[in-house]
């Protein structure tokens, strides 16, 4: 579990870490659009350069991104094989018996790989530099206009932040219950289908019953401390834009503009 890199917050200090989550989320969207525009290799190079600078500023290593990308490699290889057999346009680059590889098959695959790599880098940049709680706070603020349409944005954000807060507790609990059941002879790795089902039940049922108990306790604790769903509250953490946030958004916008020019004008 702890080896998971994708989506993990890296607690170091950098300008990007200090940027306002809203600015980072908005930039993410602008750059996502840029990645999906058909801008060609020059466009990708522009985005890649921008993201690389981002990584450097955030003091993150490229190896981190590659690690996150690793699980997708298999999928990419699979895609390449399908493309080789289905795409028959462009120059013939390689021919052996019944296998004919055309340039478009390779280029198309590469196109997708590069796009994915850019997307992974982009999301890693966001999640590695932004605490989950800040992320929810940023999302809540950005969704604020939706509150006028009676979307309970605050409650949604509260739910997400409590869920995030309890993830470590639940992981610990899962380990404890698994150990207790192993001590009663449960084998979580091997066994017949029937044994497997019983093993999973012996974990899931206690986990749920603890979770319900916890939810009950938590609801009481929140109510006792004066929380009323939907009621007006003040906020401890108020987000404030700084100059760095404007710079970030303007730069992201410029990259998008550049990509648009490359895609549609030139």
């Amino acid at each position: 579990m702890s080896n998971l890199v994708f989506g993990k917050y890296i607690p170091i200090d950098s300008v990007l870490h200090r940027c306002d989550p809203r600015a980072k989320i908005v930039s993410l969207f602008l750059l996502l659009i840029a990645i999906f525009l058909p801008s060609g290799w020059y466009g990708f190079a522009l985005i890649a350069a921008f993201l690389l600078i981002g990584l450097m500023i955030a003091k993150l290593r490229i190896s981190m991104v590659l690690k996150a990308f690793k699980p997708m490699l298999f999928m990419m290889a699979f895609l390449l094989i399908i493309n080789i057999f289905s795409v028959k346009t462009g120059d013939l680059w390689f021919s052996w018996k019944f296998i004919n590889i055309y340039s478009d098959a390779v280029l198309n695959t590469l196109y997708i790989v590069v796009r994915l790599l850019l997307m992974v880098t982009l999301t890693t940049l966001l999640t590695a530099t932004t605490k989950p709680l800040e992320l929810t706070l940023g999302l809540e603020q950005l969704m604020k206009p939706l509150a006028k349409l009676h979307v309970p944005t605050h409650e949604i954000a509260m739910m997400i932040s409590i869920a995030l807060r309890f993830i470590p507790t639940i992981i610990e609990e899962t380990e404890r219950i698994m150990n207790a059941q192993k001590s009663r002879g449960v084998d979580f790795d091997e066994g017949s289908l029937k044994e497997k089902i019983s093993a999973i039940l012996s974990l899931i049922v206690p986990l749920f019953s603890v979770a319900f108990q916890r939810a009950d306790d938590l609801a009481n604790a929140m109510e006792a401390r004066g929380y009323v769903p939907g009621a007006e509250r003040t906020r401890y953490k108020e987000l404030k834009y700084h100059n760095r946030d404007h710079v970030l958004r303007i730069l992201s916008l410029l990259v998008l503009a550049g990509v648009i020019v490359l895609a549609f004008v030139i």
Partner: protein
Amino acid sequence: MAITFKKLNHTYSPDMPYSFHALKDIDLEIEEKKITAIIGHTGSGKSTLVQHMNALLLPTSGEVEVAGFSVTADKKPKNLKQLRQKVGLVFQFSEYQLFEETILKDVSFGPKNFGVSEEEAVKRARAALKVVGLDASYEERSPLDLSGGQKRRVAIAGILAMDPEIIVLDEPTAGLDPHGSREMIKLFSALNKEQGKTIILISHDNEIVYRYADNTVILNKGEVSYSGPTKELFENDELVEKFNLVLPQLLELKSQLQKKGFSLKKHYDDLEALVKDVAKEVKR
């Protein structure tokens, strides 16, 4: 010996920057058919130590011998299941491990996992429930409807029904009221005296340790700092001071009285005997 630790080390996440050396060169012998208490501060490695006793954790280096099985760093014991049948481990807040629809089913779950026939498992479960003080009227009830203390009894019955030689308990009295704690600890004492089970008990409560444990092991920052008879530990002022032990109340009172100048015997079985001697001196 029921359990022997030989130069055992355990390190969590050894290759990570946040690795943690939880147990350091543990050499320890735990006597058969005795009650052994393991004490030490939170984080001293008590839970890590007991999880080696049924191979839930494997040593990073060194060896542990349990009931004729050997567990070392590189290999999981071949007969892992047999080992786990012989060493019943009851976790802290064990009431949270219940999951079957009825109490009888839950208690017979363990023995069935170890290959005992349905019929025999039910027979054992009934016997185990009786031992923990839950009569036949509980058999068909859902374990989730019970009070916290009763649930914990069901969980313990679930381990007893496996018929282990060694029973390891991680803070079995945590969160129970005084009456519940007393009943719980009497149960283990009886299992030891009447059925000859080896009992290993992690406890924070020195009253219980002093009164019931034959031997005591003190863990401190992953190292064994004392292992020996309980009485010799608590009735030795030097050791008490060295390990900064919270004295059981009887001993605390005795030591305060001695400090004032009363001359008293080395050992008193109970408070009444102590009061009798002190009263004699006061009235003289």
